């Protein structure tokens, strides 16, 4: 039986979830809260595709024990799907065909959204820096950078 009760605000909704001590934030988001945009690519903190926002900052949900998220605010792509900036990013990803296999796409979009929401002026180098923690094996990054850059210019 799951033993710990944690409280989180997830995508704007207060949730209470029972977790095991060895559950990761990633497991709780995916398995308990059904937020499947959060992907696992390594489980060791090295690929970035499990990135979510915790208290407004990008974190790796695969290396954060679930109980550490107690009393924190978590945002995933599902929580941003109706945000106008995120919608622009998504449209831009489609325009540039920046989602190939799409497995890195949610994390790329969340990181891109966070960048555009926290910094006024961003150039392509800044975008490259910001997404450098998220691996993509399909696109070679160029189309992703261009997609985010186009929104940055609007």
């Amino acid at each position, binding site marked *: 039986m799951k033993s710990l009760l944690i409280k989180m605000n997830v995508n704007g909704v207060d949730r209470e979830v029972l977790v095991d001590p060895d559950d990761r934030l990633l497991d709780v988001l*995916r398995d308990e809260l059904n937020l499947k*945009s959060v992907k696992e690519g390594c489980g060791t903190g090295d690929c970035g*595709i499990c990135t979510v926002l915790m208290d407004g900052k990008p974190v790796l949900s695969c290396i954060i024990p679930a109980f550490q998220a107690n009393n924190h605010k978590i945002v995933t792509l599902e929580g941003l799907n109706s945000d106008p900036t995120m919608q622009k990013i*998504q449209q831009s990803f*489609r325009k540039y*065909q920046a989602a190939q*296999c799409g497995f890195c796409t949610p994390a790329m979009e969340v990181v891109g959204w966070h960048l555009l929401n926290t910094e006024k002026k961003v150039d392509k180098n800044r975008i*490259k820096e910001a997404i450098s923690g998220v691996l993509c*094996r399909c696109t*070679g990054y160029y189309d992703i950078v261009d997609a985010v850059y186009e929104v940055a210019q609007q």
Partner: protein
Amino acid sequence: MKAETVEEFISELQKKAERGELLYIGQDLKRLDDLEKVLGSPVYTNDLLPRNALYARLVLSKYPHALIKGISISKALNYPGVRYVLTYKDVPGLNESSTIIPDRPLFAFDKVRSTGDIVAAVIAEKPTRAKEATELVEVDYEQLPAVFDPLEAMKPDAPKIHENGNIIKHVKVRKGDIEKGFQEADYIIENTFRTQHQDAVALETETAFAVPKDDKVLIIGSMQTPHHVQAAVAKVLGWPIDRVEVIQAVTGGAFGPKSDETPYDVASIAALGALKTGRPVLMSMTREESMKAHTKRHPAIITHKTGVKSNGKLTASKVQIVLDGGAYASLGVLVIVRATFHANGPYDIPNVWNDGYKVYTNNTYTGSFRGFGAPQAIFAAEAQMDEIARKLNIDPLDLRLINMLRPGSRTSTGQLMDESCGLPECVEAVVNASDYRNKRKQYESQNGTVRRGIGIALLHHGNALGPEGNDYAYIHLTVERSGKIHLGTGLTEYGTGAISGLAQIAASVLGVPLDYFVIDRPNTLVHHETGPTVASRVTAIGGNAARDAALKLKQKILPVASKMLECNVDDVVLVDGYAFCKGKEGRNVAWEEIVKEAYDANIELSTLGYYIAPECKWDPETGLGSPYNQYTFGAAIAEVEVDMETGQYRVLNYYVAFDVGKAINPQRVRGQILGGTVQGLGYAMMEELVHKNGYVVNPNLKDYYIPTSLDIPENIQTFIIEKAGSIGPYGAKIVAEPPIVLPAPAVRNALLNAVGSGVNSLPITSEKVLNAIKSSRK
């Protein structure tokens, strides 16, 4: 259509009608499958898992070569949360998980041959419980002598890994008179090149889950070849294949390993687990399991001996390629064929003698991976060209211009190049864009600590399967009453957008906008077995089947439209979702109306398109003939900057051109070039799955580096050349694989230009560059 008035609308229809069947060919139409991806919708395998599922974890071999004296699972079975432990004893059918040569058991039973071998799988309520319990599976091993160097493994007294000796496959090319060729030469240049294990690192690992359904099993997984997975699972279960239903979920990257044997493993283990426990079972590899147990790119040891006249004309090329196959044959028996046929590079050489060997060792096994033997072969061939140029003291570009394939010349297997050989145009594009000649001159006299270099590499790439199998495809088109068109096929999408390209071709033939199409998920019980989705062959081969299906559908639609329009069938034109009668454009009917009319008239609207490529003929003893129907060509120029004190370097500029015959969707062609180039830069500069005495030293993404967004060249320029090929739809050639091939030789040759000495092994680390700098100072 954005038309303000009826007149405008009609004139746009007329303009588009002039494009005929080419209506949407060559246009950057968007892909049909990315809405769900950008929204983060639950479409990948692990997202679809039923809630009551169990999880499997693997027990991998502890030794690279050992007899199994006994396996005890009782402690693991008693661990909290564990529901079952699978071993070879649980296999009701054939304990086999192999593609071509049946040399690999699903579960090791008598012995293990590598540290990637699967001995058991623990199935538990949680992945963590399963993982913990893997430690409790006790295997009694008796170690055997092992061999890790493929050259050692080829010797007669080497430890035997399988019954029939360690050479799995020997491929030959024998053209002309090699000894005469060397006699005619003014210089003979010999070099040895080495390449490393590369891991594909699809961001989604190999994964599948199985759900028991009465006397059947349903498998949903990440894979390139669902019908092959179906057959593999049926074999393991000892069932007729119809009782196994396989659906390919949206797949998070593939790159070749997902067409090889690992998808069989995960699907079979999930299926066995599901049948034993009566519950859904997920076998989703951890990154570590994947990097140990799946197939990687073969390391190669390649020796070149080349004869050349002082005027630069090549007279003879003798190449030996030895691929480290690891413990099992896999699709690698075909990889060595492609490697051997491409071993001399894209050059017309009168006398050729190639030997390619795929060899068993006790390293983890190697197999299919984007490029399929070409990255190793072309790295060596193109490095050798620069070494030859250095010896003759001529520019490497000039040496290539003298010898490269062009219309009228012949490949190493004697295949005649026709007008579809666009290699000269590729070279011209990158040479001009990079200002190669001037830069070469400029970099001749550099003294500072930071120096630059520029280098070139070329390739040819035999299209589609060629000697690797029968090249056919089926495409189903089914029109709903609403007018929506379903495209169904056993060919799979894993990121390239190629399946959307099939719809683009069908849309173009039918004159219906792309957004009328939906792509059905590949399902083995619904779609025909259609050959593997490998060798970048979806567009070139599947495209013809899509065209065929669309033409057949058009034959059903036209008479209906002709009646509705009171127009001669031959004068009916389909454009952008409308039909009109030539000369009477004002009166038109919409696609939906025609479809409804057809259904009301009892005409069903579904067709099956089929295509099989002409048979490729070559002599297996000499390799001579035409092993491929058509070739893609490419050229790349890299410009690097090196720190002469540390050996650290970066790629500043990269110019790359491919002759793709016809770019059906140029934006996606570019996407493949960019993605393949960066994966190829990883291969060139940083990636190595290090094996030490048969153990993988870095099976994780912390110690195995792949390029990040900070590692890519600032400036990359791509060029598309279109010299129509003979078999692809509208002349299209394949494109997904060749881009990964060129970065390694281009970067290597640019570094040679910068520092005056070449690095002959991959990856080209700063340490190796520093050694090259030191040796050139001597």
